[in-house]
């Protein structure tokens, strides 16, 4: 039986996708490029990404109950579809490595103060494998249950950060070239909503419920912009030095320390968000794998994922600097294909279908 998710669960997945990779290192990386204008880079890239949501609804309306694979196959042929899925598979794999690398640095520096790669791998890999094996519905329900906790944790981090001196960040300091350069350079860190295309046929939408998804998207956007604003406002010119934004906005607060060291709030919030993101991307990887190799089952996709991930991470991309460098060079090309060209192809498919429908009418 096909597993389906409701619109609320879809919205929560969307928020996790919006958070992906933007809570820890991203603000400081953007600051290096465009100073506090990183807020605008994020806002513009988010708005571009947001265009995916109406496209999803249009596709669902015109191709009811059809999966992305079926839509692409019927319009572009098997070879092109498998090629797209192969690119999506690579996209999700590197997303996982990126999220893991950045979070691992946070674990190592802030929590364990030691090299803990095996602890992280032993803890996280079985959880994401188990989640992939169970399917999208338990994954969405789990996020639904923990969503309130994540949201409270996030808001608490933002709220406690207000106990320190926060000034208005100095904005509009970057030139137009570096501004768009930064947008291009960090394109790979956006576009996570693409995941929703993969579960197109699994989302159950009742009439009039579409707006709920926009509510979740706007909530996610506001939280991210608030985080960047508070982060740049707090650290000003030293913003490039602090690699763990959500955790770092909490420190140096007198009132905060008086309550006790409540770093645990940021720690747990980041952990939950990270694991959910890894689960989402890992599910995306598995879904692509199963469409490329339809004769294989979930177990194979999990084994292939684990082996590929471990080899790539352990031998090639273990240092997050290498991964960051890769995301702003080679992976940007992939990001352009997946984040821009791929939705455009789907938009064209939709237009063709619509014109055919109109002709039939």
């Amino acid at each position, binding site marked *: 039986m096909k597993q389906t998710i*409701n619109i*609320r*669960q879809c919205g929560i997945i969307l928020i996790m996708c919006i958070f992906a990779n933007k809570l820890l290192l991203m603000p400081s990386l953007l600051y290096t490029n465009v100073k506090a204008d990183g807020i605008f880079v994020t806002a513009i890239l988010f708005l571009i990404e947001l265009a995916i949501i109406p496209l999803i609804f249009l596709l669902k309306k015109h191709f009811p109950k059809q999966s992305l694979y079926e839509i692409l196959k019927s319009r572009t042929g098997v070879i092109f579809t498998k090629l797209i899925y192969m690119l999506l598979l690579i996209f999700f794999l590197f997303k996982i490595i990126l999220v893991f690398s950045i979070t691992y640095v946070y*674990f190592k520096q802030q*929590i*364990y103060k030691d090299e803990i790669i095996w*602890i*992280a791998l*032993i*803890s*996280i890999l*079985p*959880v994401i494998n*188990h*989640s992939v094996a*169970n*399917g999208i*519905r*338990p*994954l969405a*329900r*789990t996020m*639904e*249950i*923990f969503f309130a906790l994540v949201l409270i944790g996030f808001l608490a981090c933002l709220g406690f950060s207000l106990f320190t001196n926060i000034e208005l960040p100095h904005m509009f300091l970057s030139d137009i070239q570096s501004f768009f350069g930064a947008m291009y350079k960090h394109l790979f860190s956006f576009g996570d909503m693409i995941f929703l295309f993969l579960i197109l046929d699994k989302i159950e939408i009742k009439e009039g419920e579409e707006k709920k998804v926009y509510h979740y998207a706007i909530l996610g956007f506001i939280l991210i912009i608030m985080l960047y604003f508070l982060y740049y406002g707090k650290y000003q010119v030293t913003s490039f030095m602090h690699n763990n934004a959500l955790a770092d906005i909490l420190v140096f607060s007198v009132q905060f320390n008086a309550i*006790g*060291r409540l*770093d*645990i709030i940021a*720690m*747990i919030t980041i*952990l*939950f968000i990270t*694991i*959910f993101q890894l689960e989402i991307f890992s599910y995306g990887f598995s879904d692509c794998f199963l469409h490329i190799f339809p004769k294989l089952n979930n177990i194979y996709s999990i084994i292939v994922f684990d082996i590929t991930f471990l080899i790539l991470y352990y031998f090639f991309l273990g240092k997050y600097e290498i991964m960051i460098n890769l995301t702003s060079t080679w992976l940007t090309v992939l990001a352009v294909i997946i984040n821009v060209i791929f939705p455009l192809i789907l938009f064209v498919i939709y237009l063709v279908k619509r014109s055919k429908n109109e002709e039939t009418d």
Partner: protein
Amino acid sequence: MSDFNIRKEIEKVKEELNSCIDFAYRYYKKNGQEVGLIFLKSIIDQTLLSSAIYYPLQTFQNEFTIDNLKTSIIKCADVKDIEKKDIIKEILDGKVIILTNFSLQILSVDLYKFPTRTPSEPPTSPVIQGPREGFVEDLQTNITLLRRRLKSPNMILEVVRVGSQTQTKICISYIKGIANDKVIKEIKNKLKNIKTDGIVDSYMILSFLEDKPNSLFKQIGNQEKPDVVVAKMLEGRVALIVDNSPIVLTIPFVFIEDLQNSNDYYTNHHYSSLVRVIRLLGLLIAIIAPGFYLSMQIYHYNILPLNFLVTIANTTQGLPFTPFLEILFIFLLFQILYEVSLRLPSYLGLATSIVGALILGDTGVKAGLISPPGVIIVALSKIALYTIPEEASQITVLQLVFLFLGGSLGIIGITCGAIYIINYLNSIDSFGTPYLAPYGPKISSDLKDGLFTEPIQKMKNRPKSFSPKNKERV
């Protein structure tokens, strides 16, 4: 006159029952008319046998006919015709079989009587307010307890027999027009497919009914109180009453049920909500506290407030065990004491508590083997376990799992463990009902009886989680 040879038939039955010591028969002959009675004296009411069958047979003056026997001679309400092949089954059910040489009809008279308990308050479900009656081991009594509370012609009671040797009666009880047909059908199918020689308690059929029988978590509810079972049937659930068991199973089951208690519905709903939140907190403390304490002590001591950190550092200084072994040692000590106290006679229980809690605990701390914070954390976790006594066994296993996760992997291990378990629970469906409903998925209308409760008059609809046929409570 028929050619029925009563004596021969009695001998045959006796042989089939392997001449068991409680096998008994009586034989009457009058004017060439013969009447034979067969029964097992251990499971019938012998006083009633004398007054309702023996005496009328002896004193009846006219000619016996089968109609006479049925209508005027036998002074019992439950007299029925049976087929020859059912004789053994009926005898084993506590019936008296009546054979005659003047008719081929065989009569079965229900004189079943077992030694049974009177319904009393179940030891594991005491209440401050509300009914105190609990189920007993007798199926008939249990049905009576339900019937007394549910005077509806739509209450259906269907009996199936399970177990090739025990032939245990299982009564499927539900309210027609409310319970979901799919669930009823699935239950009947599963019961039909049970292949075993015996069922001696309702717990024994759980693994045959559950979708994930190897799971740590129960997927079928168990209740000891008739008022609770009736309330659940009114929500659209199906009850399984197993003969010889005081535990009635309810299907489907959702996890939130363990946080609910019948007492919640008989007190103020604000207080009920508070109590449910406390139960949930108790559950979380019970599962996570020892592992979390360990992870803080081993990996994340910088997060602890300074005063608390100093206290821990002072008290753990010089301990021969590592923090992990220390907590594990205290945990095992508590578990051993618990097991001992369960099985010891009550007069020894107090002595064990004194030896365990006072002597072992206090001396252990004074001897520098264990630290006071360690004892407090494990004790707190063990006490919190009993905010939800129904889940005590599962929680104990989870305590140990989280102890290992916290001790070996720190906070990452605990978070991953929590996500893993919730994801696993979300993959369970109890007869089509999501296990973590109404929170995963969120079903807004069912939240009225979730962690926070609302007054009964506001619960106008039956829970959607169970897909009842009739959704409105009218």
